[in-house]
């Protein structure tokens, strides 16, 4: 059942545009995780995980297993390094389209 109900088909298109457009798959250089990445600028990064990627990442498994549980803010440093490498190698276009 729909919850917040848009009144126009264009809105649904916008939802797809902002959440899915221009995502490049980046494979982690250290594990089997593969995530969707977008960079609107050098300092901006958007990372879309899925369940399989999260399961493949040993860093997250380690945090989950620690007695205190995972700290929310932990991202994976190896993945960040992999994204940086992908940028250096020109696999990721840096720059936004019309705000997305």
């Amino acid at each position, binding site marked *: 059942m729909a*919850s917040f109900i848009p*009144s126009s088909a264009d809105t649904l298109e*916008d939802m797809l545009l902002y959440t899915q457009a221009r995502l490049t798959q980046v494979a982690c250089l250290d594990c089997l995780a593969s995530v969707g990445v977008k960079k609107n600028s050098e300092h901006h990064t958007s990372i*879309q995980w899925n369940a399989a990627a999260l399961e493949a990442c040993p860093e997250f498994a380690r945090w989950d297993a620690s007695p205190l549980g995972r700290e*929310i*803010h932990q991202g994976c440093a190896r993945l960040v390094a992999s994204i940086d490498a992908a940028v250096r190698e020109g696999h990721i276009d840096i720059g936004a389209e019309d*705000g997305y």
Partner: protein
Amino acid sequence: MSDTRFLDQGAPPERFARGWHCLGLAKDFADGKPHGIDGFGGKLVVWQDTQGNLNVLDGYCRHMGGDLTQGAVKGDEIACPFHDWRWGGDGKCKAIPYARRVPLRARTQKYPAVVRNGQLMVWHDVEGSEADHDVLPPELAGVGTEAYTDWTWEVLDVPSAHCREIIDNVVDMAHFFYIHFAFPTNFRNVFEGHVATQFMESTGRPDMDGAGYGDEGLVLKSEASYFGPSYMINWLHVDYKGFETEVILINCHVPTGPNSFKLQYALCVKKPEGVDDATADYIGKRYSETFKEGFEQDVHIWLNKAPVQNPLLCEEDGPVYQLRRWYEQFYVDKADVTPEMTDRFEFEVDTTKANEYWREEVARNLAKKAEEDAATPETADA
């Protein structure tokens, strides 16, 4: 075909979110009296029984609709003011003083309740599911002990906006400059499962005469997570002119109608070394006032803005659409929650350009002010 952007106001959802909602400080309900709380399109009654447990039921009696919040606590039960039917915390009618027997069907709606960190939480789900204790907000070590001040508690009524407006704040980097008078220098979001987090560092604007967070000496490091649809814990490291304080701010709400909610916030402070209790309480109150100003600034915007289903974003904005996709999980049946709603998502906002422009704007404001001050002759003891 016109190129004009259409503002899609959409329609608010027909249901209230599934999840834990905070109704207030547990101690405020512990006086043996019934308490009325507006929520979920109606009214709830809260009372403490003889074992010290807090019970929460729908506020209206299933007999003839009497207002239980105006009744009385008799033994462990809440007694209706109309014909004295006695309702137990499990939702069952336990006794009708004038009747041979209680009808088998005399069951009312109960809200599963838990006290967490000294606050009363209730589970709400239109599907009537069992309360999910795995998604309660975490226990806060040290809170409720001598190490922290007591919670403050404030309520702001928001009579004409949907509570998604306050959720949107999680990703709204730029409003911190315009509405709260701070430079957000670092801004990052992570959404995963039922938790949505904002990491932010900010410095107060020097051109705002100390309004809101607009004080150059105020540097915040903030980590704020929604645990479910309505309850945010904000861990704040506050540096005010070199005086550092650890503050825990709870920002939570209860929806009252399809387009209204009560915004509530609580705050406690880790007592700084060498500071007596009265002073620590005073510090807590002062921070509470600062955040009150902040929330009031937000509320003013919400009460006047239009709802928007299709926000138009620029490159410097946060991930509004992804946040709303996360928030959607609480408004669909449990079986209809999709992986996209709960999959981990990370977003780092680029604040560099924005802050360059804002620093220039503030410098211009300060220069203009200095000019004006110089032009106005000092009125000595007028």
